[in-house]
């Protein structure tokens, strides 16, 4: 479904991604872990098409199409969804209005009929239950005055409504207490399916006890330096990121 080859990217002139290779198949959940500044969020933003990130080399093939050539909205319509680490507050735009416009843009692209107000409301009510979201939040402006937990739940709720093929969760666990984390993880697990792939980006192993990944990759200094199954996450939790650094120094000549 997704193939990333030798991806290099710059932000404000500094090279952050320095040759990422990753293949994700339909139905799989991949966790990407790494210390601060390793390039986790940059990878998420590059995949979703953020213009301030400059791809300098490599390619990304999504469903046999060149993802990097698509505008952000085209990627979304093709089925890529990014759950933001820091969802934006947008005063004056109601969540309902926004989400209906988004859903219809996606449906139009897929050759489906636009949903009317009644069907949309029914869909929304069903999906809100997944993350135990209060219906009152729907009529409020997007994320305005939402707590950290409500914002993250809103991201997963939007994902449920838009039904993407590939979901990228960028540090969805950051800033959540254990109860909110459990709710968000339950929502995410309910959305796992054979038709959907997920990339779960996180700093901590904690989230991966709830969303159990098929694969774990460690991102370090802009490259994936280690891959394994869920046991790798536990090992990392136990030994810390310094352990990766030590291993790297052993295998690479000094000064590389």
């Amino acid at each position: 479904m997704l193939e990333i080859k030798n991806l290099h990217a710059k932000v404000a002139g500094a090279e952050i991604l320095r040759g990422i290779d990753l293949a994700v198949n339909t139905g799989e959940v991949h966790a990407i872990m790494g210390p601060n500044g390793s390039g986790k969020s940059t990878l998420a933003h590059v995949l979703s098409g953020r213009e301030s990130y400059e791809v300098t080399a490599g390619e990304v093939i999504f469903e046999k199409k060149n993802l990097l050539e698509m505008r952000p909205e085209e990627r979304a319509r093709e089925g890529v969804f990014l759950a933001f680490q820091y969802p934006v507050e947008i005063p004056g735009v109601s969540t309902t209005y926004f989400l209906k416009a988004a859903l219809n843009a996606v449906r139009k692209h897929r050759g489906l009929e636009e949903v009317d107000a009644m069907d949309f409301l029914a869909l929304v009510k069903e999906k809100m239950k997944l993350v135990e979201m209060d219906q009152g939040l729907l009529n409020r402006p997007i994320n305005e005055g939402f707590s950290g937990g409500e914002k993250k739940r809103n991201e997963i709720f939007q994902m449920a409504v838009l039904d993407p093929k590939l979901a990228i969760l960028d540090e969805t666990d950051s800033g959540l207490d254990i109860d909110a984390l459990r709710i968000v993880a339950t929502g995410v697990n309910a959305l796992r399916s054979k038709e959907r792939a997920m990339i779960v980006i996180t700093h901590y192993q904690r989230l991966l006890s709830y969303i159990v990944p098929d694969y774990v990759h460690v991102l370090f200094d802009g490259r994936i330096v280690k891959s394994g199954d869920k046991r790798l996450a536990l090992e990392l939790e136990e030994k810390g990121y310094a352990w990766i650094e030590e291993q790297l120094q052993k295998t690479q000549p000094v000064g590389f």
Partner: protein
Amino acid sequence: MTTIAQAKTSYQAHFSQVAKELGQDWKGWVRRLRETAISRFGEMGFPTLRDEEWKYTNVALILDTPFQPAPYDVRSLRSDMPAWVSLGSFEGSEMVFVNSHYSPEFSSLGQLPRGVEVGSLAAAVTAEARWVESHLARYACYQERAFVALNTALMQDGAFVYVPEGKVLEGPIHLLFISAAGKGATVSHPRILIVIGKGAQASIIESYTGRQDEVYFTNAVTEIVIGENAVVEHYKLQRESERAFHMATLEAHVERGGNFLSHSVSLGGALTRNEINAILDGEGCECALNGLYIASGEQHIDNHTRIDHVKPHGTSRELYKGILDGRSRGVFNGKIYVHKTAEKSDAKQTNNNLLLSRDALIDTKPQLEIYNNDVKCSHGSTIGRLDQDSIFYLRSRGIGVEAARNLLTYAFASDVINRIKVGPMREQLDQLLTAKFHGGS
């Protein structure tokens, strides 16, 4: 090119013409008022960029066009009016004015409570309605303001609204001013007098429009007297032709415990200047001025407001928002003047501007003048562009870049729109702006 001096002479010539045409139709006191106004205009002349109050708005653009007094010709209008007067109707009473003249054939007054009088101002003067002489031209200062002086000298008709003590109007009164320029460029001077008695309540919509390609000049003056504990909502919707010039002065005189709510929405016109002045002349008055101006292309929209806190315990709130695109220019000048006699005044003023293009320009000048120590006053203004993070967020959900920009632009204006209490007016404006800003896909 017409020089300012030539323009002045030409408007003075309009006066002789109007004086001859009107003959004995208007009363002696009005004739004297006109004469005083035209002679004061002769002394003042038109303002220039050297006048502090006109620093950013060059009226020479208006004076370049040799406008002729607008004819009162409804026939030219009747055949295709529905096609271009798209302001829609509101529940309540609607009065239509063509080139400032009242047109009963297009108007429908509906059911009004006993004692409420609405209609043509010229007719009210002729009929010697007792309150006209005591209020007309008592508030809008023709001694100091050139365009008010011109209107006072050259006014031919307009609206009057009188709501006696204790009466409450259910629906709004809509005053629709249509300019029909005909063959050449024309000027009209609509005049509106609104007198709301003690404890009475009314909501009035003033809207201006014309054919989209016509060149004309509207120079309007509105005076509103708000009696003790009276409540007045005033809405102004300016949708003039994009080649038209629009000058408007609104003077509100608020008495003890009165409540004045003003909404001013400017969408059309090549050059627009709105002056809104509210005098809180009794204890415990409340005043809210809300405004929205949306300009694109080469449009110029200037909003000047002034709130005078004269007596204690007055509250004023002001929120003006501007959206400027293309090479348009906006001006906001809001003064809050707290007199020495106005302790416990509470005033707050906000002006926010959204610039959609590199060439759009805004001059914003909030001013507080406070002569009493025991007051609470604040002001603030912002100028910004659309937030890139918000645009990206919307795009990342599948919404196109144009649609995302339009949605955010609309959202910027929405809090001003949401303050409009007349449902149909709010909905209509909502549709206008949705059409304007939700065009993309």
